[in-house]
């Protein structure tokens, strides 16, 4: 109860509009001062939280994404996806999901994926008469794949917060990510097929011939080499996640400079500045959320939750579903990073007690956070699509509703079949 009360108080405080990091720091500091009489060694705490080798991966993955965006390789990715899928019902939607999936594998960010693919895909979809609501929904939802298909900044943070192998988490996200992409694509195809049947009009371009497909693939080839370099390196145990981020950024820069010739010193400098600023924003939240976690630990809340779960004799599945419900509710009012950092220290002792694999939980949490990205009222991908399309937010919210249901189904599937997440990490070359 204390945890829920503190959480509700924090959320109320954050709704005053303070930057989240400041809200969490002030709230936690005030509770600590009240309960303990001092802030303790806050300076060392902040420095220790930020001075973590694993966190180095985050600015480097951001650098990699920035290089790919500034190199403008997205147009070729989308073109290739469209050439391969245009003859299918809802082909443009399927192409958008495919392009989102590939871009997710080079960006690690859902909002960046929605923003980048949305800017290319939405005008095309609307120009070719794709149902506008369907278009908003698929770009908003497809963008969320950014944090499930590795690399993924939220997974890095969950890995650090829960002391779980980031490489294993990345691998665990691959099949659920592909499954979710397939579910989204199937939904697009079914929707368009139904529309065609109702209207009796079939408005699809012909299937691309082999020459056209080969040409499209040639154009997108170098961009498509990035995911195997990053993920293959981690899977084979050649790189740690941080090293893979560095090599990925180097590879992305090389592609942008040598292949696309659209990347100069100015792009490098501005890209580094963008990555630095985004890192600062993220790390500020890490400091605030870490203080909140520190405060909860000082008040003995994680231990209290373990006792409660033992007393109530909750099974693994019951606990997982209850936690997912809580994360879903939090996703309606908070953004993803805060949710990870606020809940993980509390949930981890219970996961250990119940013998739940943290990698499995990490994937479920990430899908749930994807859901948060398209849940009103603070779903960031909804805001992105609203800005790109220039339509009222409620229209985008309605467009995203079916995808929320599809994500809920995906969560249930991963709960029912843990192997979807756990099989690939179990075959990795290095241990966890």
């Amino acid at each position: 109860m204390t945890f829920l009360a503190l959480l509700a108080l924090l959320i109320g405080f954050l709704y005053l509009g303070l930057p989240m990091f400041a809200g969490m720091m002030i709230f936690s500091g005030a509770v600590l001062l009240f309960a303990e009489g001092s802030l303790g060694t806050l300076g060392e705490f902040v420095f220790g939280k930020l001075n973590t080798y694993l966190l180095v991966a985050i600015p480097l993955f951001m650098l990699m994404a920035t290089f790919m965006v500034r190199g403008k390789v997205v147009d070729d990715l989308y073109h290739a996806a469209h050439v391969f899928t245009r003859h299918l019902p809802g082909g443009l939607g399927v192409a958008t999901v495919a392009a989102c999936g590939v871009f997710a594998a080079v960006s690690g960010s859902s909002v960046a994926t929605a923003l980048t693919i949305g800017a290319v895909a939405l005008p095309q979809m609307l120009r070719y008469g794709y149902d506008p609501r369907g278009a908003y929904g698929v770009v908003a939802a497809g963008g969320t794949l950014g944090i499930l298909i590795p690399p993924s900044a939220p997974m890095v943070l969950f890995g650090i917060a829960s002391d779980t192998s980031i490489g294993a988490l990345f691998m665990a996200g691959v099949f659920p990510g592909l499954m979710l992409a397939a579910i989204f694509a199937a939904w697009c195809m079914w929707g368009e097929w139904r529309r065609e049947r109702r209207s009796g009009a079939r408005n699809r371009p012909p299937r691309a011939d082999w020459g056209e497909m080969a040409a499209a693939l040639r154009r997108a080839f170098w961009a498509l080499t990035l995911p195997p370099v990053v993920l293959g390196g981690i899977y084979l145990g050649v790189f740690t996640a941080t090293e893979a981020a560095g090599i990925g950024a180097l590879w992305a820069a090389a592609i942008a400079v040598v292949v696309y010739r659209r990347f100069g010193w100015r792009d490098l400098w501005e890209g580094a500045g963008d990555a630095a600023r985004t890192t600062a924003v993220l790390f500020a939240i890490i400091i605030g959320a870490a203080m909140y976690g520190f405060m909860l630990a000082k008040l003995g809340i994680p231990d209290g939750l373990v006792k409660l779960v033992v007393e109530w004799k909750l099974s693994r599945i019951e606990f997982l579903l209850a936690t997912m419900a809580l994360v879903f509710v939090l996703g309606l009012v908070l953004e993803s990073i805060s949710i990870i950092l606020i809940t993980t220290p509390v949930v981890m002792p219970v996961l250990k007690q119940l013998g739940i694999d943290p990698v499995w939980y990490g994937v479920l949490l990430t899908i749930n956070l994807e859901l948060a990205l398209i849940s009103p009222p603070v779903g960031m991908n909804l805001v992105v699509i609203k800005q790109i399309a220039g339509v009222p937010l409620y229209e985008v919210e309605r467009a995203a509703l079916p995808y929320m249901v599809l994500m809920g189904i995906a969560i249930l599937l991963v709960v029912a079949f843990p192997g979807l997440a756990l099989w690939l990490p179990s075959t990795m070359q290095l241990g966890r």
Partner: protein
Amino acid sequence: MSALDRLDRLAAGLARLGRGLAALSCLAAFAVVVAAVAMRYLFGRPLVWADEVSGWLVVSTAMLALAEAQYRGENVAVDLWLERARGRTLTALRLGGAAGVAVCGGVLLHQGWQMVAFSRMVGIKSNTLATVDVWTIQALVPIGGALLLAIALVQSARIVAGRPISADEGVKAARSIE
């Protein structure tokens, strides 16, 4: 040009300086990680200091760029009430936000200063580079706190005076972290 405008220019300059140094730190961290991989696989000579130094560089990236993120209004906030508020309520909420950040900057400055003083007194050295005093790296916390405090105080003053702040036009791009 009014005193507030001059202060805002100073704040913009500080934010840009922080951003420039942060960008350099980010590129340096990138170079260190790539060099560490190359040295290990190509030359068989791992850089034992690479992990520690890249960690420092990321602390530098984050602490120095925080001021510009605040200046541009990119720090993530739940702005539902803020968007609907008008008149005095809006001013109060905006002032509360800027003042809250100023408090955090002040706390980071004060607590960071104490940490640096303690490390200097004890003479703590780096684990992998014995010539480096750890306080020189830890000093990034109070420096970042001071920059943040300065920016947030200027923003607070402008809000009280009813003047626009640069963050008003900020493109919340920082939310791309999700």
